[in-house]
């Protein structure tokens, strides 16, 4: 057992979870990605527990010479499109396989944000991050299990981009310095004009604005907290199998963002969501005939 901070160590995390020596960087099926594109993101193929999988990770050690906002794991435009292409190439590689044999996608998550900059806004960083999310959801629809493993930072837009469209999300516990939030409590205090002490006190009972793995667990925002680095690989394999099983049983609704909505209700962290959805169903049922 060891507590080793994994923030900034996407590549090391890939080595820890893969079958030894199995990583083929920039290769997915017959596809080979130009290694100059999107250096802040790592894509490729590994085997894990004897099974081929696509891996997509942040690389906090590399900047992008063309886009200076990309450093320390920031997802820039090239990075997000590279990640999206990795997903589409995964779908392509397994297009003739039956649903139960589509290879998994494993996302190693450690990013502080999407690229913030003028050029990014002119050319549309929003499209880049949106592309990747749509690709991941499409992969799930084809039956590829998508598992996210948070090893460091899963912050706001970066977490939406790279993580929150997964079937299941795992995170190292807070002992590893993992950070999951939209904004740190100190910034929320500034913007909402509340003092930090009050917010800290409130966050003990209300997880909707507090940061960290435990609160996201309560909200159903992550499926499982992993307490030891050594357990990451086994946990990922276990969740891949669970997702295959749920998909085969026709219960894929229990995975992904919708599934985490159900989990938020079950864990008592997000109870209003279901009330709203039920009320809408009831109200619409009364007028539905007009539209049929």
């Amino acid at each position, binding site marked *: 057992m060891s507590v080793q901070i994994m923030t900034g160590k996407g590549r090391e995390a890939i080595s820890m979870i893969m079958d030894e020596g199995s990583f083929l960087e920039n290769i997915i099926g017959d596809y080979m990605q130009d290694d100059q594109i999107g250096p802040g993101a790592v894509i490729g193929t590994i085997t894990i527990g004897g099974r081929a999988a696509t891996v997509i990770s942040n690389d906090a050690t590399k900047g992008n010479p063309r886009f200076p906002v990309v450093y320390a794991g920031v997802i820039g435009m090239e990075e997000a499109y590279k990640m999206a292409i990795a997903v589409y190439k995964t779908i392509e590689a397994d297009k003739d396989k039956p649903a139960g044999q589509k290879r998994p996608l494993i996302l190693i998550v450690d990013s502080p944000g999407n690229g*913030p900059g003028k050029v990014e806004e002119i050319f549309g960083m929003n499209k880049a991050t949106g592309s990747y999310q*749509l690709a991941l959801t*499409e992969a799930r629809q084809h039956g590829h299990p998508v598992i996210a493993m948070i090893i460091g930072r899963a912050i706001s837009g970066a977490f939406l981009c790279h993580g929150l469209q997964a079937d299941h999300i795992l995170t190292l516990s807070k002992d590893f310095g993992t950070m999951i939030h939209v904004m740190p409590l100190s910034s929320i205090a500034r913007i909402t004009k509340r003092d930090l002490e009050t917010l800290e006190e409130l966050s003990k009972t209300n997880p909707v604005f507090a940061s960290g793995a435990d609160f996201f667990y309560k909200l159903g925002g992550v499926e499982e907290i992993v307490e030891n680095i050594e357990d990451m690989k086994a946990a990922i394999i276990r969740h891949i199998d669970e997702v295959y099983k749920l998909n085969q049983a026709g219960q894929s609704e229990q995975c992904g963002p919708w599934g985490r909505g159900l989990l938020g209700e079950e864990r008592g962290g997000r109870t209003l969501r279901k009330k709203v959805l039920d009320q809408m169903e009831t109200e619409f049922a009364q007028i539905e005939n007009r539209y049929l």
Partner: protein
Amino acid sequence: MKGWQEFQDQSFYEATARERAFHLVDEGTFEELIAPVDEMTSPHLPVLGEAISFDDGVVTGVGTMSSRPVFVISQEGRFIGGAVGEVGGAKIVGTFKLALELYEKIKAKYPDDYESRVPAVVFSFETGGVRLHEANAGLLAHAEVMEMIQKCRGKLPVISLVGSKVGCFGGMGFVCVATDMVIMSDLGRIGLTGPEVIEEVMGKKEFDSADRALIYRTTGGKHKYIMRDCAYLVEDSIGGFRRQIEEVLKMSYAQIQECRSIGTPELTEEQLGIVGLAAGLNPKDAKDVWYYFGNDNSEAIPDMFYQEFMSVVKRRQKGGC
């Protein structure tokens, strides 16, 4: 009181979420779902001493356009900048769910003739993204909305409207481009990172968040139209948006889907190509990009009125829409 017809000339930019919702669909057909009378409000705001709104900042419901069901989601920028929390987020997600369920029922009832009968979803954005007072719930709701948009793919048209005061920023900046089509007015703005944050990162000299003209050049409707990040640019009135939606709903679903800017391997490669252009061109201003796409008059574009702009503008070449 103004009638439905008079509202067609009302500025879309100035209109409230409810005014937009009621007047985008056919007269007298809008039925609000989870109306203010239901008092579905955020429990998280009072804890922080904030006022609540009985619709939690988003109007949801259904009406018809040319006898076709149209679900409407309309965000209210006057309430905490239209930001998305737990209740409002669930209302958005729930609207997509109802549209998908109605799609299945219509398809079952008219198996040979359902394409022109299926519902559409029209999403009028006015938002800064996640509501910080309930940030985690807002974030998770964004992910659910993205999943819902993908679930609607290949089934029913989803159309984004952007032309309201607050614009469309933060996580909703990618939600709005993930749909089949974006319709904007030149007053609309779409971005991911808000201007203040860019200023914080790049410095005031590089990006002054108080410079409205700069913000419009970078995120505004004219720019998005040149880039083909919006399919149609309309005049700033509720009727302007409504007429464009009517035209779109006459198109086949295949034609509508050709207006997507992202969401397929081909479009992803195309967008990556545009990023290559960004690196090569390294523009100091959006005007440099307009010039590159053939607008020799790029300096004059910001001050042009709608008709003049539409008659002279050169857009990025793109297949389909």
